[in-house]
């Protein structure tokens, strides 16, 4: 059974704004899927469609074989959600909030307390457990939201910008926690702008822009879509004649090759010409570079289409 399945999913809001336009992809259980795109790309709308908060205008989606629009309550029992607007109660303490949400998911009081305490400990909030939420900082609230989404040990987590407002140490702690959850079989659907953060923890990606899905796959598949070329950075005393390069600094050169197999030939060429090689590294396209290339390609295609 697929954890998530979207088939030609579209959502047009009243007023004609097409937020999601005919997107299809699927996720296996235990995947950490990074759903990436600029503001207004349709990421949050997709999460809301997958959680049953919105009804699709066209197409369908299923989460663990449940139709979110038909069985939202059953789906909510299996899922945990963090979005910008899913806040908790200021007049309750951190622990009370978690216990309340635990009981909403049908847990008994002692199980709620145990699970809430363990999560607060794991997210470094244990000292603030009796403090009212109104006294929590943005980062503490965000970590508590993560604990809230996990209180009932869901099979899938929908996380919309889970590390926004977190300091680097807390963000790293959250990353480790997400990876641990995935290792135990929890599927993670993660929306974020922070591409470096996504590259650290995601196993597969989906790139969305203006409601359209630009690409899906793991980072290697995405790289191939953009370019299969590898940029080699060299520090050498000379570059033989006829070898195309770009100077990147004193005795430092960037050479673009078709694949990593060509690197030994370059090194041999320099040594053969009497040069010394001090440094060789293959720089592969980061997720950020892939993302911008895909967005540019898409924008170019759209502009071409409009002409």
């Amino acid at each position: 059974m697929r954890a998530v399945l979207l088939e030609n999913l579209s959502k047009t809001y009243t007023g004609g704004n097409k937020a999601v336009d005919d997107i299809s992809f699927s996720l296996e259980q235990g995947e950490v899927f990074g759903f990436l795109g600029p503001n207004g790309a349709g990421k949050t709308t997709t999460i809301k469609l997958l959680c049953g908060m919105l009804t699709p205008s066209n197409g369908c989606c299923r989460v663990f074989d449940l139709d979110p629009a038909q069985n939202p309550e059953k789906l909510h029992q299996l899922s945990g959600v963090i979005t910008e607007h899913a806040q908790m109660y200021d007049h309750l303490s951190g622990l009370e909030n978690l216990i309340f949400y635990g009981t909403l998911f049908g847990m008994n009081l002692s199980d709620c307390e145990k699970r809430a305490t363990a999560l607060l400990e794991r997210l470094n909030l244990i000292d603030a457990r009796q403090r009212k939420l109104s006294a929590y900082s943005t980062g503490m609230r965000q970590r508590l939201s993560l604990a809230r989404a996990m209180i009932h040990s869901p099979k899938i987590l929908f996380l919309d910008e889970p590390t926004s407002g977190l300091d680097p140490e807390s963000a790293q702690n959250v990353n480790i926690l997400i990876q641990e959850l995935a290792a135990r079989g929890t599927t993670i659907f993660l929306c974020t702008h922070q591409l470096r953060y996504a590259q650290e923890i995601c196993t597969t990606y989906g790139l969305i822009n203006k409601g359209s899905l630009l690409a899906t796959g793991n980072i290697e598949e995405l790289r191939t879509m953009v370019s299969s070329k590898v940029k080699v950075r060299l520090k050498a005393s000379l570059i033989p004649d006829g070898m195309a390069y770009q100077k990147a600094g004193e005795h430092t050169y960037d050479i673009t090759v078709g694949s990593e197999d060509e690197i030994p030939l370059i090194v041999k060429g320099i040594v053969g010409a009497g040069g010394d090689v001090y440094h060789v590294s293959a720089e592969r396209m980061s997720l950020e570079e892939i993302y911008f290339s895909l967005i540019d390609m898409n924008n170019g295609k759209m502009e071409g289409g409009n002409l």
Partner: protein
Amino acid sequence: MNTKQLALIKKDIRGITSNKQVFMVMLIVPLALTIVLPSILVFVTALVPDAASDFQALLNMLPITEREGNQDQIILRLVLNKIMPAFFLMIPIMASSVMAASSFVGEKEKHTLETLLYSPLSLKQLFQSKILAGFSVGMMVSFISFAAMMIVLEIEMLFLTGAGIMPDISWLIVMLLIAPAISLVAIGITVRGSAKAQTIEEAQQRAVFLIFPIIALVIGQFTGVILVSTWLLLGMGVVLALLAALLMKGAVGKFTYEKLLR
């Protein structure tokens, strides 16, 4: 009713009692209506001699059969059983609408509604719980206000006239039929408006319109147009109960997740 719904009801009640600003609004009006207002009437009747003669003229015009006790006692029985019930109806309206507005639109305003919608409670269960929370608080405030009014009035009457005072059957109809029905009507109106309302105050304003017929009833009594009788109260109770049932039925089925998150 399941444990999930009970948890939500408890949280809502705790939410209103811990919010001092909202809770004070809910307490001040009942306190003024059930303790201050009848006490003023008791003191004026018992301690101002001219007032008693004015009231005697009024008594002669009214179709009152029960004329036991002295004139002060008859007047104060009239105040308690004919004038106070109409005033009293403002209490369940106020308490229930404040609670309903706070628990529906308040959640929206504080961005906690979306979190609740991600829970495994169905929209119907969610609405039932919120309606019950509003109803419980409305009834609780009404019964406490009635008890407080009776205690204060009994003490004042014993000191000033030497005899106690007993509420008549109209109070039974008010407490067991009209107050619950009007409380549900106030909640129904507030809930129906809660999808469009963006602030607690906006949602409360809708139920305030219910106060106008009550004010008309009070004015009607003072001007002699209407006299609150058992039959009038029973009739009012039945109409309000029917209206409450209609509003409840319509309110729950009207919402979808999408409408609520707008």
